[in-house]
Structures are given as structure tokens and as C-alpha cells.
């Protein structure tokens, strides 16, 4: 009774607490901006205008959002099973390698491409998902069968993947004669259509941005994860294992099997990052395309409380910060892109680590102000 967790009404728990966290983070970031001698209100306005003020800005924002949705969902799904998947970067890297291998194989089959070219992109996407899933299955298996903590193994496997991609790009699937560690361009049938091309037949004239149909995949993934977690037996099993593994065993659910399956699904979702970056934007595999999105996914999942709606909104917020921050540093050279990193870090601090603090404050405020 003494250590009862703070109970908040649902709306406060899902909306108010994250909002307060974001507000506090922005406030702290504003203080930093003042500290370097700039006007935080002006900076905020520039940031928002850069992210949302033009069709081009929105395109870039949603392109970043796509990455964060995938990596955020990856962390969220594992989280429901009680697993902390820190390996989004590595899983996305291997997903990219699998997609590149699939594209290399497809390039070698011009006959197939000319007949069934429409299958190329789905094959490449599935290859990416399979790569991510396989690479996340390994720590899942180690956790389930060997008791090796998934946090440790996923972090270490990030390094393995980072080394593996260097080797492969240099020695195996790299472009012959290029100084860049990159693959040749993927076959055009295998890449995802940019949004401005996709919408052109509808009479919409959009500026060229990296936003591509992977964004639609990301939205579908949000719905699919919601269905999975709250409307399927597997999701029920995942949540049971995450909340109480003993009760899961009692219910005839194997915690070991669920651990492995949940990690594989998590890895497949992380593979979405490779779909967006390699298949959607670069149209080839380059080094370091994961660029830390996998880690930001942890913050996205924490802020979004593991719920797809929350993950979507948190991903959008980080999308705005990334795009707006880039514009801001362009307009105000004193505010570098590192400022965005600072804001992101403060957000992670407030939304993730200091969540309990705001819950307490909100509970106090509601206790005083509300009818209860």
C-alpha cells in the first residue's frame, strides 16, 4: 500500500504527462539557446517554419518521421515483451545488407525484372524485414535459451553489424572501382517511389523531397502493431510475458518462445529504417545509413509509452526537430545542428528518465484541482 504506483486517469497518463515532459524539455532547451545569446522564441519560430512552413519542409519532416516510426515501434514491441532492444541500429544495418543482397540478385536476373518487375520492391522489402528479424532473433535466442541479457547482446551486435557492413561493402557487394563504400545502384524496379512522383498523377505538384512510399508502410506498421499487441493472441502472449512471465507459463504460454518471436518482430520493424533509407532515398546501400535513428527510436518508444498512437506522435515530434533543427542551423550559424541533439537529449531525459517526476507533479496538481 505504501509503495503504490502513482495512478493517474488514462488521459493524464497518455497525454498530459508526455506533454508536460515535452514542455519542460523545450523550456530547458530554450534556456540553452538564451545561454548562447540567441532569442529562443525566434529560434522556435524558425524551427517550426523550417519543419512545417512549406511543402518541402513537411516532406523532409515526414521523411524523418518515417525512420522514427519504424525504430520507435521496434523498441515498443520488444518493450511489451519486457525486453529492451537497444540493437535497432545493428538490425537496420543487417536489414540493409539483406535488401542489398536481394537487389544484387535481382540485378543479375534481368529476365525476371522485365517480366515481374512489380515484385522486385516487395521482395527487397521482405528481405530487409527478414534481415532485421534474423539479426534480432539471435539476441532473443540467447536471452531465451542462454539467459544472456538482451541489452548487452543487442548493444554488442550493433558493433558486429557495423563492422560487417564495412567488410561487405569493401570486399563483396561494393561497387567495383568506386572509392566510396557503397553498392551499385539498385534496379529501378526495386526502389520505392518518391512521394512527389506518386502524387503527381493526382494533380498534386510537390517539391522533390526524400519522402517516399515507405512513409505509407510506416503508417501501416503503426496500425499493424496496434492490432498485433491489443487484438491478437500473440500480442496477448507478448504482453503477458512482459508483465508476468510466471503467469505466462501458468497460462501455457512459453516465455522463451515469445521472447524470440517478439525480438524477431522488433528486428523486422527496425528493418523499416533500411527500407526508407536504402530502398526509398539512397537507392543503394551506403555506410552508416542508420545515423543514430535506431537509438532515437528508444526515446520515441518511451515518449509514446509503447502505444502506436504515442509512437506516431513522438516520431512526428522528432521529425519536426530534425528537419526544423537543420533549417535553424542554416539560418542561425550560432545554433549548430548539435542543438537538435541537445533538445533530443533533454527530451529523452524528461520523457524517459524523469517520467516519474512529472507523474508525481501531475498527480499532485490533479489531486488539488480535480474533484477527486
Amino acid at each position: 500500500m505504501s509503495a503504490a504506483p502513482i495512478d493517474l486517469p488514462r488521459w493524464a497518463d497518455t497525454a498530459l504527462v508526455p506533454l508536460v515532459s515535452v514542455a519542460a524539455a523545450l523550456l530547458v532547451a530554450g534556456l540553452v539557446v538564451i545561454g548562447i545569446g540567441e532569442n529562443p522564441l525566434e529560434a522556435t519560430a524558425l524551427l517550426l517554419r523550417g519543419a512545417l512552413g512549406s511543402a518541402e519542409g513537411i516532406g523532409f519532416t515526414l521523411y524523418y518521421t518515417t525512420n522514427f516510426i519504424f525504430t520507435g515501434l521496434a523498441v515498443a514491441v520488444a518493450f511489451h515483451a519486457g525486453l529492451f532492444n537497444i540493437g535497432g541500429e545493428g538490425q537496420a544495418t543487417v536489414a540493409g545488407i539483406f535488401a542489398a543482397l536481394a537487389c544484387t540478385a535481382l540485378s543479375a536476373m534481368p529476365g525476371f525484372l522485365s517480366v515481374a518487375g512489380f515484385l522486385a520492391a516487395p521482395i527487397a522489402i521482405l528481405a530487409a524485414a527478414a534481415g532485421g528479424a534474423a539479426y534480432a532473433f539471435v539476441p532473443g535466442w540467447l536471452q531465451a535459451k542462454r539467459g544472456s541479457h538482451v541489452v548487452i547482446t543487442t548493444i554488442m551486435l550493433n558493433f558486429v553489424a557495423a563492422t560487417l557492413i564495412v567488410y561487405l561493402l569493401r570486399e563483396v557487394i561494393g561497387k567495383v572501382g568506386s572509392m566510396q563504400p557503397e553498392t551499385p545502384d539498385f534496379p529501378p524496379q526495386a526502389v520505392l517511389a518518391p512521394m512527389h512522383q506518386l502524387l503527381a498523377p493526382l494533380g498534386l505538384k510537390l517539391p522533390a523531397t526524400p519522402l517516399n512510399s515507405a512513409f505509407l508502410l510506416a503508417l501501416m506498421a503503426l496500425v499493424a502493431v496496434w492490432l498485433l499487441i491489443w487484438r491478437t493472441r500473440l500480442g496477448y502472449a507478448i504482453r503477458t510475458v512482459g508483465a508476468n512471465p510466471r503467469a505466462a507459463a501458468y497460462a501455457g504460454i512459453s516465455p522463451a518462445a515469445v521472447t524470440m518471436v517478439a525480438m524477431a518482430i522488433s528486428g523486422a520493424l527496425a528493418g523499416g529504417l533500411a527500407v526508407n533509407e536504402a530502398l526509398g532515398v539512397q537507392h543503394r546501400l551506403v555506410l552508416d545509413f542508420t545515423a543514430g535513428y535506431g537509438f532515437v527510436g528508444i526515446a520515441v518508444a518511451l515518449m509514446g509509452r509503447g502505444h502506436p498512437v504515442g509512437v506516431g506522435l513522438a516520431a512526428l515530434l522528432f521529425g519536426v526537430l530534425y528537419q526544423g533543427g537543420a533549417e535553424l542551423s542554416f539560418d542561425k550559424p550560432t545554433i549548430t545542428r548539435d542543438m537538435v541533439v541537445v533538445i533530443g537529449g533533454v527530451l529523452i531525459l524528461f520523457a524517459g528518465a524523469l517520467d516519474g517526476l512529472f507523474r508525481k507533479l501531475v498527480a499532485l496538481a490533479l489531486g488539488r484541482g480535480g474533484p477527486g
Partner: protein
Amino acid sequence: MSTAPVPPAIELAGISKRFGAVAANRDVSLAVAVGSIHGIVGENGAGKSTLMSILYGFYEADAGEIRVAGKPRRIRSPADAIAAGIGMVHQHFMLVDTLSVVENVVLGAEGGARLKGGLAKARAELARLSREYGLAIEPDAIVGELSVGLQQRVEILKALYRGAEVLILDEPTAVLTPAEADQLFALLRALKAQGKTVILITHKLREIMAVTDTVSVMRRGEMVAGFRTAETSPPALAEAMVGRRVLLRVEKPPRERGAAVLEAVGLTCRDARGTETLRDVGLTLHAGEIVGIAGVAGNGQSELLEVLAGLVQPTRGVIRLGGRILTAADRHPARLRERGVMHVPEDRQRSGLVTAFSAAENAILGYQGDPAFRAGPFLSPARIEAHARTAFAAYDVRPPDPALKTAKFSGGNQQKIVLAREIERHPRVLLVGQPTRGVDIGAIEFIHRRLVELRDAGVAILLVSVELEEVMALSDRILALCGGRITGERAAERADERELGLLMAGVTDEAA
């Protein structure tokens, strides 16, 4: 001075506390005399724990006054309570398993940055306390390795070390064997003899009658009655607690048992450390009978239930269900459920429920694969909720709200959720562990009646309980278990407590 009356050790006057719309305590007054043992009884949710949490500083009362030894005190934190000489032993111990007894005792009262001085002082003090109250306890033993009964003693020592004059014990016997409970009562009497005051929160009337001097009864947040223990009786207390007459005995009509349903032969089981937890256990459950297992906790009852429920695989032995031998693949919780072997686990919070889930979600735990809970390929919250609503109505789960988080239900109602779930699936065999642990009187009566009804309907029931009284009242046959071995069998009507006690202690029939 002899003419001046001694003020009560604890006086509560007009204590009220609301949580939202719920009045947990309403104008509660209480006086406990120095050097007495005072019992507070009431059903779960009657407000006993809230009242004690106010006294111990976890909550602050909305209204009312606390007087300690006649002086008004503001107690706003446990530290204030400790300073006022009030100590508390919680139902769930607040101990660090990996530390030694003496380290646990000084925890929070180390008396300086360097441990050495504090530990030496504690060691001396501990020796004195142990002598004074006859508490045999090894100061350097690791707490996690002690039995539950000894861990509770460490909690009591902790409170005494901090200078407690008034000791509050919250449901202290919920985790104890009968013998351990008796030892605890002896200790409480010793404390009383030394002039300490004890407040005992419980819902077990036997304990009240055994050890208290005075008793107050709470119901729905109010203090409804107070008695001298010598002048009251269990039925009178039960009536005051529940607000109506309660049947304390189980009405059990005789019944011819049917065919053998579940048979186990030569079951042997080892735990992770290789220790044999079950040795060559054989038993038969017939349709329409309740077989009770009598045994001191930790003598293989838990493992027996787990093996029969498919949660643990035996190292040797055969289990037959309806005459057919169960293969290793059959001995899986889900497969056994399909064949009508349902299981109410001993520890509902740890294995029978996911307390973070809604009550409706828990109402399908273990049956999540049933197509009745799906609409198309997806789980249907509407169907799950409708199912839960019906089950909760039949089992009088309060509040009957399937959307409420399970952690918010009282222990008795959580147990009803589990029972409703398992019994509503029409079991052939029901394995029941501790059906009434931490459950209030009204609910105990209900649960007992349900189990007897089920037996009358032809279900084979295996009952494991640490309450020997419960085993004797419900069972048709009783098997005594000691050290993982069955030491004897008695027909319930010919069993007596003393004889069972001997069997539970390992004196086998052959030796007797």
C-alpha cells in the same frame, strides 16, 4: 502517582481519510492500553490497513488526532512514527535478501558513514533483544536464506532496535505455517510481558481469540464494535465484520465418490539444485471427491500441484488422466486445460494473474486461444468483457468492473476472478492451491461453498492449503505430505489434528 490513570499507548480520535470518492476511514476512534495486545479485524477493504498506514505516517489523515502515550503527535512520515516509538511489520517484508540479519537491522539506522561502529552496536543490541524475548536468530545469517518465519522475526527485531514501544503487525500470519504462527504468538506474549504494546491486524478470528486482550472490528471504513476478547466469540466477531450472520462451518453432504479420474504413480521431482522435492508420490483423485494435502509449507505441495498442472516435469513417474497415460507433450498447461484439468495456483499474484492487466483480460488467461473470444482473426474486447461480466456476476466479484486494473481488486476478489475463470470452464479435475489465502471471511464462505458444489457435481478436486482447519473441513480424504513423501492417508471424518500433525512432521503410519 498511582492514582493517575496511565494514558493509552495509542489513541486515535476521529480519524477520517478519503481516497477520491472512497471514504477509507470515517471518524475512527481507537484506544490501545499500554502493555496489551489489541486486535483489529475486518474484511479486506474495511480500512484496517489505511488506519495503520495513517498511524505509521504513510498517509496523513484528513481529520482527527493521534495521541501517543497521552501526547498529541503529528505523524507525517514513517520517520516521525519511529521517533514516536511506533514500529511496523508489514505483510510483505521490507528486507534486503542479500544482506545479513544484522545488516538488515541497522539499515536506515546505521548511525554514521562508517558501518563498523553501527554494526557492532547492533550486534550487541541484537544479542540482548534475542535473550530478552527468546528470539533465536543468527546475526550473520543471510536473510534470503532464512525461513519466512525467521524473516518476520528480523522485521520485528528491526522495529525493536529502533526503540519501538508500540508494534503494529499487518496480517503477520498470512505467510506462516501454523507452528510458525504459534511461535509468533508466543513472541507477542513475551513482548507484552515486557510492557510493549502490540496492534495486530488480521482477519483470522482464531488468532484474535488466541492472542489478543481486546479487539475492535472495522467495516466499510468505520469502527463498528469493540470487545474484550474474553467476552466475545468467533461467531459474534464474524457477524460484526460482515454485518450479517456467517456460516463458519462448511456444510458438506456425504457423497459416494465416482470413478478414478486422475492417477499419479511414483512421481518424483527434482528442483534446479537437484534436491528431490517429490519422492515416489502416488495418489488417485476420484470424481466427486475433495482430496486435501496436509503438510507444512515447503514439503512438496507446491511441486505436486505444479507437476499435475504441467508446469514442472517429473523426473520419474506416471500420470494417468481418465485411464490414459499422459505423455510429456500432454503434460503442458494448455494441453491439460483442453482435457479439463484446471488449476487455481497457490500464489495468485505471482502466477495466477497479470495484475497490470484489466480484470477482463485476466478472465481469459490460459484460455486466450478460445475462438469464443475472437471476432474474425482478432481478439474481441467486447466478447472478452461480456464473458468477464457474466463470470464476475456469478462469483460476486466486487467491483463488477471488467475494465478495472486487476491490481486494484482486493485479495479476495482477485481470488474470485481466478476461481471464476477456472471453474466456469467446467473442469474434470480442479487443482486448488491456497484457495482462501488473504481472503476475507465473507469470501471464504463463498469459495468453500463453491468448491463443495463442484465436488457434488462430480469434479475431482485436489486441495492444497496451509490452513489445516480448511483441509479438514473441506476434504473427503486427507493425504499428509512431509519431505516430498506421502506419510499417511486419513478419511476426513476420522482425522484428528494431532494425528495429522504427527504425519506432517514425518512420523509415518508404519512407524506410528
